């Protein structure tokens, strides 16, 4: 049997959500149509919006459904940036960190390359914790030129939990909008639309919903323009026929996973602590990447000196264990992790990484099976060395 420990990449859809989705997809009607079938579809969409808003403690009008986390990140960053520079061309600095997901880094670098944006990448320490003193200092000096701050809630590679409340506090005092990518946080820690936040990205397939659905929560007060025009659906911020069944499925999964976070946080932490401890016992040279930094209980990221991530991945796969190196993949290439490099680790260290991410149904015996394969995998990977 396959042991799947890559839930941070994507996790299983809740069976009840899938069943309902299949049903809903067979219902006729465009939410924008005036007739009764259109109105039913609209009802499905709006019920989803309300449920998601309920989970997040926001106004239902603040929920903008998108095609996923990546689109939500693009909309937030470009929409906030363009609005800010449109009002004041001098306001063209984006503040972020290089530990972000590519869905955030890439649009920022694109704005830098093609739209004249200036970027200030904040430092992080070797555990991956943001330097918020630097944020405060930078804003104190430059806030009149800052278009937005974009910092993720939880890091998808290391599981580090950022102090987003503090980020919002700092930025709010300078009236600088804050976007947070909460894709890796949602379903793993309590996520609400914090007062003062401008925008927050979410993705359904990370919380037991379908792939290709997400949301950007946009504060009513946000000054933002649309990126994709065409029909003005979704509060004029996102044109295109709305995916009512997908939104419905996302909202249902969100409700279920939020309840799980509430009920099971303690037991999941026990499981993670066990995993981390056993890995360190089996392989003393292994390093738990986030160290003492606060983190989510469903994700453990390690570096294994002298091993390359792709060797370990191959060897685990031979044992029917699915794990990840954690770093971004282009066509399946495991590269040195940009997150670890940003944390000041060497290229070599950033190559020998492994991310183990637990799902809602992961059991201790699955962890044990993973642990049982680890020593042999590690020994062989060590022998294969860092050839890659």
């Amino acid at each position: 049997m396959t042991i799947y420990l890559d839930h941070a990449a994507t996790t299983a859809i809740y069976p009840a959500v899938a069943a309902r989705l299949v049903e809903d997809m067979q219902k006729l009607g465009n939410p924008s149509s005036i007739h009764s079938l259109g109105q039913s579809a609209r009802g499905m969409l709006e019920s989803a919006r309300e449920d998601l808003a309920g989970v997040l403690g926001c106004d239902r009008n603040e929920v903008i459904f998108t095609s996923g986390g990546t689109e939500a990140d693009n909309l937030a960053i470009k929409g906030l940036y363009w609005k800010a520079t449109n009002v004041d061309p001098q306001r063209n600095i984006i503040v972020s960190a290089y530990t972000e997901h590519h869905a955030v880094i890439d649009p920022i670098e694109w704005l830098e390359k093609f739209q004249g944006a200036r970027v200030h990448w904040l430092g992080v320490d070797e555990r991956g914790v943001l330097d918020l003193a630097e944020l405060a200092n930078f804003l104190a000096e430059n806030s009149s030129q800052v278009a937005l701050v974009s910092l993720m809630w939880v890091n998808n590679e290391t599981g580090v939990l950022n102090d987003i409340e503090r980020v919002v506090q700092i930025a709010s005092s300078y009236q600088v909008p804050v976007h947070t990518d909460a894709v890796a946080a949602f379903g793993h820690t309590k996520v609400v639309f914090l007062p003062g936040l401008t925008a927050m990205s979410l993705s359904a397939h990370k919380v037991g919903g379908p792939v290709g659905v997400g949301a950007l929560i946009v504060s009513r007060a946000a000054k933002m323009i649309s990126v994709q025009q065409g029909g003005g659906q979704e509060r004029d911020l996102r044109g295109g026929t709305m995916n009512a069944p997908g939104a419905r499925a996302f909202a249902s999964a969100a409700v279920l996973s939020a309840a799980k976070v509430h009920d099971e946080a303690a037991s999941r932490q026990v499981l993670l602590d066990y995993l981390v401890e056993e890995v360190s016992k089996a392989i003393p040279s292994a390093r738990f990447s986030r160290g003492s930094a606060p983190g989510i209980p469903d994700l453990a990221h390690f570096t294994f000196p002298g091993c390359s991530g792709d060797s370990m991945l191959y060897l685990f796969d031979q044992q029917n264990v699915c794990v990840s190196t954690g770093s971004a993949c282009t066509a399946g290439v495991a590269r040195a992790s940009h997150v670890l490099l940003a944390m000041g680790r060497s290229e070599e260290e950033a190559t020998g990484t492994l991310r183990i991410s637990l799902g809602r149904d992961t059991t201790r015996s699955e962890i044990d099976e993973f642990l049982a394969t680890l020593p042999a995998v590690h020994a062989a990977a060590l022998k294969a060395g860092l050839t890659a």
Partner: protein
Amino acid sequence: MKVLAAMSGGVDSAVAAARAVDAGHEVVGVHLALSRNSGTLRTGSRGCCTIEDSMDAQRVSALLGIKYFVWDFSERFKMEVVDDFIQEYEAGRTPNPCMRCNERIKFAALLEKALALGFDAVCTGHYATLEEHDGNLELHRSPATAKDQSYVLGVLTTEQLKHVLFPIGAESDKATIRQEAADRGLAVAQKPDSYDICFIPDGDTQGWLGEKLQEEPGDIVDRNGRKVSSHTGTHNFTVGQRKGLHIEQPAKDGKPRYVLEIKPATRTVVVGPQAALAIKELGGQRFTWCGVAPQNPEIPFEAEVQVRAHAEPVACTAMLRDGELMVITHEPILGVAPGQTAVIYVGTRVLGQFTIDRTVSAVSPESDE
């Protein structure tokens, strides 16, 4: 056997992998990521390093029902092949990067990693054959003379030969391979072959080198040391080149002059008549034997030498002398430049190879007067 099929995304390696599966091996497909910033789509005939190539290899693996992985060798590739290429040009030599890649990456780094991870062999889509004689493995030319790739495999050592498979190596005709790929439903059946250097994006080697190397002006001289012109950097020249010399005064014989030698130490480019390009003797200190070495290589023996991938082999007398593997050709040969690899054949068998670091012209300088 547990076989790692190295898959470039091209038709040859696809069919090779398919045949390895048919032969009953336990096959895993591996694509080598060699470039740090690979392009998205293939442009023309260049290389095998785009994402499209990787996707093609993955698609073939899925159709063959084998697992597929991408292994990142970009760091090694940069150090051992790309940087080596630049250094060789800097040193006035003309390297063959595909050969280096086989020597250092495909049949070294990849093979070592494969063996460490529990594989028995690496299989590729090269056109060359392995024969066993008296328990010893030998590398031979492919019967498909036009496609024969034994030259670029000349760097393989005895140990490496034990762990390689060339399932399409004996195929006499590329069309057969394409047909087989089509019959197997592999979408790469009609994919064009790659010819150019994979890491030079638009095939403009001189332009690419110009960006990497400093312009260092120097003299263009004739074989007797007389300055005939000047240049902006030795990397703009390769031995045998005729165009772009910008020599004002015509040669005494009125015939065009060619680059004969590049001396980076003094930044001099030596030119002379075409006849002087003819080489009668070449040798190199860096050599390997492919399969079992001759018992007394110091005793001169009759062989053939080939100096480029698609050059005609030339009859020669070969020998090991003062730590140098060298050949004296029976007839002068053209198109020889230091840095190239000379592969020595006995009949169809690849016997060994050396990187050329010394050549002797068949025509003496005095005759230039």
